[in-house]
Structure formats: C-alpha cells, structure tokens
C-alpha cells in the first residue's frame, strides 16, 4: 500500500463519529441557522452579469439554478451532471456541450482547439460514455488571422483523432472588430453509454474514497502565466488531454464500485467535492498532505494567493469509489499514462452533511467552500 492510500484513513474513522451535543452552544445555533439559509432556493440578486457568474463557484450555481434550470426544467437536465443521459431505441446516449473563451488562445501544452475537443470528450467520458461525434461552432472577430484559425482547426483535428471522435457538423459566425476577443469555440458531443453503470454526484456514500487522477492545477496556472501579466515564469504546461481511455480503464477495473467521475475543470477539485457533498448529502473530508500539487504550481499559486484546490485542470478527474474497490481503482488509474500520479485524497463521511472539510498539513481542520468571485477568469 502506498503512503497516499493510508493518509486518508484517519478520515474514515473520523466521519463514523457523529457526535453532536444534545445542547448546542450559541455558536452551534448560529451555524445551524446558516446551514438552513444556505439550503434555501438560490435567488439571483444582481441586476447584471458579473465575471463571478462564469467562475464555476457559488454565483455560477445560482445563475444556473435560478435562470436556466428555472426556465428549462426537465428530468434530464435536473441532475445537473456533466452531460445528459438519453434513452433511445439504439441504446443510451450521453449528450453534452461546452464553450471555450480561453485567453490567450495558445499556451504551453495546448490551445483553444484541443481544449474544445478534450473538454467535450471528457464531459462524455465522465458520464461513462464512449465519445463518438462532436459539433463545433466558431464565433470569430473581424480581423482574426486565418493562419491562427487554421492552427486551431489542425489542433482540433489532432485531438479528435486521438480521442477517436469525429467532428461531424459545425457553424461559423463573424462579429465586428471589438465585439469578441479573437475566437470563441463551442463544441457539443454525443457518446454511447454501453456500460450498465449510473454515475452521479448524488451517488456518494459514507465510507467511499475520493481519488484524483494526477497533479492538480497545471492548466490554470499555465494559462495564467501565459498571459504575461504577472512577470512570473515557471516550467509548467497545460494538462489538457482526453480522458475517455483512462475513464474506461477505471470503469473496467472497479465496475459498479465507481460512484461518480468529474473532470476537475473550472472551480477545480474543491468545487467538485462541494457538488458531491451537497448532491449526496454527505461530508467530504480531504487530507491536505495527500493532495498532489507540483511544487512549481504550488509556488505560483502561493504567490498569486490562490488555492490550488480551486485551480482548473483540463486532463484530471475526481473519482468517488466504494471502499472495497479502491485498490483496484488506483491500480487501474496508475497503469494508464494519464494516471501515473493518481492518489486517494479523502473520504466521504456522514457529518456534517453538505460540507467539505480539509485536514491541514499543519494539523488543523477547515472548510473548503465553493468559491466566491473569480481569481482566474477565462481559463477555458
């Protein structure tokens, strides 16, 4: 057993405890009042969209639930998973879409093109589907260099080939100079759900293990530094990659022990854990010492005052796995080139429901909440 498999063991014990004194203190009463306030239906208070609404944190969740879910409400949309699962005569299909506005368009390790393909492929893979077909929509700004567009298209073609998908339909719009920032790409994708598994953020149970497929935060930090606004340079490249292969290997090895898969894009690992805690009504307890963060990413994040737990990856995912399948799951992940750094980072517990706790390396405990505001806009 590797050290990483054991580090979160304390948490398993921890979360079995369900203390809760019969006479809550004044502070505890306040905390209960806050928990009730947070459970209320979100209401959008702002009169205009701010950058926070796109950050993947609390404001994004409120926007989705108060505007889009309110308008489109249906049973397929309601679970708010990475993609919808459709039942057809031909079998079960997964269907998803994603838009890309990253700035700069080209960065070490990738560009908006492979990001757009991998992002949608990964959303399908996280549903447990085999990705098949993609669409691609382009919004281009007047004056955008054709050579850059060709470079983006070539990169999309390479990524599609690597992922075994075809881009079979598309659309192009051009807007006046100044009305867009060069090039935005939207992709949608369909895949076949061939396995008899249901992956859902609501499926986590106490005792489950939380795994991550490799070092976190590489993509977000790379893009941030590539903007050149900070006069910091670091030897780090984006982790953008298609995850369908490693996800399939994991599902083959750990079968129905896999509760859910989520790629750790906008909002990072912290946001996924919060989604799981709320959707499943459980606590997620993370171990800071077990978090895989490259020293260079850690250093840059420290300088920027950003917590790597919230920094986007484009080729890493979180898996929640039943305790008896943890060893098999980790072995399968580590056997794949994209999962060599896979580790267990925490455990699902019962109490307090809806919260993510972090046991710090320093020996304390704190909450890991959804992020408010956007420390790194336009990262994908």
């Amino acid at each position, binding site marked *: 057993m590797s050290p990483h498999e054991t580090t979160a063991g*304390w*948490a398993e014990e*921890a*979360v079995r*405890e369900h*203390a*809760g*004194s019969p006479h*809550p*203190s004044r*502070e*505890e009463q*306040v*905390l209960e*009042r*806050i928990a009730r*306030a947070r459970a209320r239906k979100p209401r959008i*208070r*702002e*009169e*205009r*969209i*701010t*950058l*926070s609404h796109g950050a993947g944190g*609390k*404001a994004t969740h*409120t926007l989705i639930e108060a505007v889009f879910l309110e308008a489109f409400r249906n049973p397929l949309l309601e679970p708010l998973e990475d993609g919808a699962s459709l039942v057809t005569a031909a079998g079960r299909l997964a269907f998803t879409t994603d838009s890309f506005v990253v700035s700069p368009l080209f960065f070490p390790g990738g560009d908006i093109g492979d990001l757009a393909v991998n992002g949608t492929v990964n959303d399908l893979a996280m549903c447990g589907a085999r990705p098949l077909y993609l669409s691609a929509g382009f919004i281009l700004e007047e004056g955008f260099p054709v050579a850059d567009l060709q470079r983006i298209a070539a990169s999309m073609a390479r990524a599609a080939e690597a992922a075994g998908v075809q881009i079979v339909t598309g659309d192009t719009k051009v807007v006046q100079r100044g009305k867009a920032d060069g090039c935005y790409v939207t992709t949608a994708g369909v895949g076949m759900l061939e396995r008899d598994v249901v992956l859902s953020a609501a499926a986590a149970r106490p005792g489950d293990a939380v795994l991550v497929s490799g070092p976190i935060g590489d993509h977000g930090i790379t893009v941030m530094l590539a903007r050149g*606004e*900070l006069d910091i340079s670091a030897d780090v490249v984006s982790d953008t990659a298609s995850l369908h292969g490693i996800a399939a290997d994991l599902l083959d090895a750990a079968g129905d022990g896999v509760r859910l898969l989520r790629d750790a894009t906008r909002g990072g690992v912290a946001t996924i854990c919060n989604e799981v805690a709320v959707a499943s009504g459980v606590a997620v*307890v993370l171990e800071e010492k077990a978090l895989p963060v490259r*020293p260079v990413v*850690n*250093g840059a994040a*420290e300088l920027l*005052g950003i917590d790597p737990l919230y920094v986007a990856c484009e080729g890493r995912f979180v898996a929640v796995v039943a305790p008896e399948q943890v060893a098999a799951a980790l072995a399968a992940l580590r056997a794949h080139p994209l999962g060599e750094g896979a580790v267990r980072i925490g455990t699902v*517990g019962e*109490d*307090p429901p809806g*919260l993510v*706790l972090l*046991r*710090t*390396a*320093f*020996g*304390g*405990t*704190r*909450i890991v*909440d959804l992020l*408010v*505001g956007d*420390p790194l806009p336009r990262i994908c």
Partner: protein
Amino acid sequence: MRYVDEYRDGDKARALATAIAASCEPGRRYSFMEICGGHTHTIYKHGLEDHLPEAITLVHGPGCPVCVIPMGRVDDAIALAEQPDVILTSFGDMLRVPGGRGSFLDSKAAGADIRMVYSPLDALKVARNNPEKRVVFMAIGFETTTPSTAMTILRAEAEGIENFSVFCNHVRVVPAITAILDSPDLRLDGFVGPGHVSTVIGCEPYEFIARDHGMPLVCSGFEPLDILSSIHGLLQQFADGRCEVENEYARVVPWAGNPKALAVIDEVMEVRETFEWRGLGWIPDSAMRLRPEYARFDAEQIFGVPGVRVADPPACQCGEVLRGAIKPWECKVFGTACTPETPIGTCMVSSEGACAAYYNFGRFSRSRVKEATAP
C-alpha cells in the same frame, strides 16, 4: 516549497502546542489580538485554533486593508471611474466591497472601465499603454503597501507619465491600535503584532503599548508556526513577569524598520489630520495623502472627488468585529443576510476579513468535528 513548508510543519506545531499549554497559568484565561488580517487568514486557513488550549482566545483585529475602507470612499472611487476616459485600477480584493450604491464589480458590469491589477506598477503600465485615457489607481493598505504606491508616483514623475493618478486611501497602523486600546468594550492581554507593516515601520512604534498600556506585543510572521511561536512568546512574557515588544519575525522585520521605504513615503506623502475607518469612525492622524508637490498625481485634486459620506448599514456590526468586541458569528446578520456572495459589511469581503475567514474556513462545529477528525 522551501521557506514555506517548514513553517507549516504539523509535528513542530504539535510540539509548540504542548509548550503553549504548559505555559498557561492554571485557571487563567488569555485574550490575544492578532492585528493583521493576514494573521486572521492564516489562523483559519490552517485550522490553527485546533492547536490552542481553551484558555486562549484569539481576537481578530482591524488590520485588514479592505475591511477598513468606508462605504463613502468606495462611492467616491466609483464616481471617479464614471468620469469620461477614466480607467480605475484596483487590487482584486476591492472589487466586491459594497459601497452605498454597489461595488466596483457592479459598476464594471454597468460599463465603467475598472481593471484588476496586482501592483501599482501594473496600474502605471496601464497608463503607459493607454495614453489617451486617465488611469486612476485605487491605493489601499497599511504601511506595507504605501511605499510601493509612493515609488510608483516617483516613477511616473521620472518617466513623465501625466495620465496617471492615485486615489490615496493608505492608512497607518499605530493610530488604529490606539483606537482599539481606547475602546471601552475590550479587554485584551496582549497582541500578536503586525508582520509586513513592521518590515517598513519596525518594532519601535509599538513600544508605547507595553510601556503605557501594560500589554506585551510580539511581531509575528504569517505562517502558522510563526503565529504559534508568537503566542508562546506572549505566554513566556507572562510567566517571566515581563511586558515588552518582541520580534518573532526577525528574519524579515528589522527592529528599526526600513529607512529607505520610510523616506520614500515621506517624500511623496503626508499624514491626514483625520480619516474615516469603516466601523471605527474618524481616527486622527490615521491616514496618508499626497503632498501638494505631487498634486498632479492626486486623483482627489485632479477630479474633485464628491467626498461621499455613507453611514454603515444599521444591521452591520463590522465595527465591533474590527475592534474585536464580538466574534464574527456573533454579528446579527452573519451568514444569513451577510455572506461572501452578498456581503453587507467589508469584513465579509476580503480574504483577510475576519468574517470571511470564519465563514469560508471555520464555519463548522468544532466540537462535532474536532474529535472526529483527530488523527
């Protein structure tokens, strides 16, 4: 990470925690105020209170640069941003601070050109790159950041950049501490003293606290082990019957401060007779403004700032939180009407604000979780 991880070591923390527990006089309770918001942030982010015995209470102080900005100054800055051809530049922390009529973020969404920068030099770069615009830097912060604002003004002068100005909100830490010491509703035993501020002003300005008020102060670094050893230092003073200013952060803080930085501040700025602090009211000699010689870089002189006065919302108890009179969760609106998404008070906005730190990191029942998460 070198120079960081060694100050976050769990084993060393446990050893210090044992020493701290042993240094407490049985039956006695201690209240220590950490002045800096950076310390408050560290305390919650690393779960430092898990290492402290019940006898020690940490009281969060006023040293959060964003938290002390009154609503009127936010409105004034928005009024600047709404003037023709103005780009307002600001640290990211300020963007969500509510003024009387919304925040910078709201104003930006409504069309004002407000940009986030990481330093005043970045703001100067914006001015250099946009010669047809008038670029205003929203300068905030204690003596830690004042020298960089002053340096930037000197740089603008040297380069002949005329479209750059500063909306100066720099504040001074000692008058704020004096206001705390004069506050009737507070009983403290000592201070975890400022860290980065002291790199500029040194430790000498705090000596009156020990001498005249009989309270020890230990200047502390910002890593969690720094804070634990500063608390240990305070307890040692009680055990030895001493009452002094000590410097735990000697690796960064020179006793006499940084004379060059102080000279740069003095060259460009002078002390204001009085300045309004969020929740603390008007405090004499508590802030800086540009000297008349640099009026052409002073946004308050160039634009005629409206000088808005906005009373704090009646429900908001930021003042009591900033004075350490109440804990964040004791505020009437904490966590229900006032949250990081919809802050009423400034303490809920900045990552260094006590309310935000408690809400984001400490909002769980320690008694329920403490035993549960013990290794």
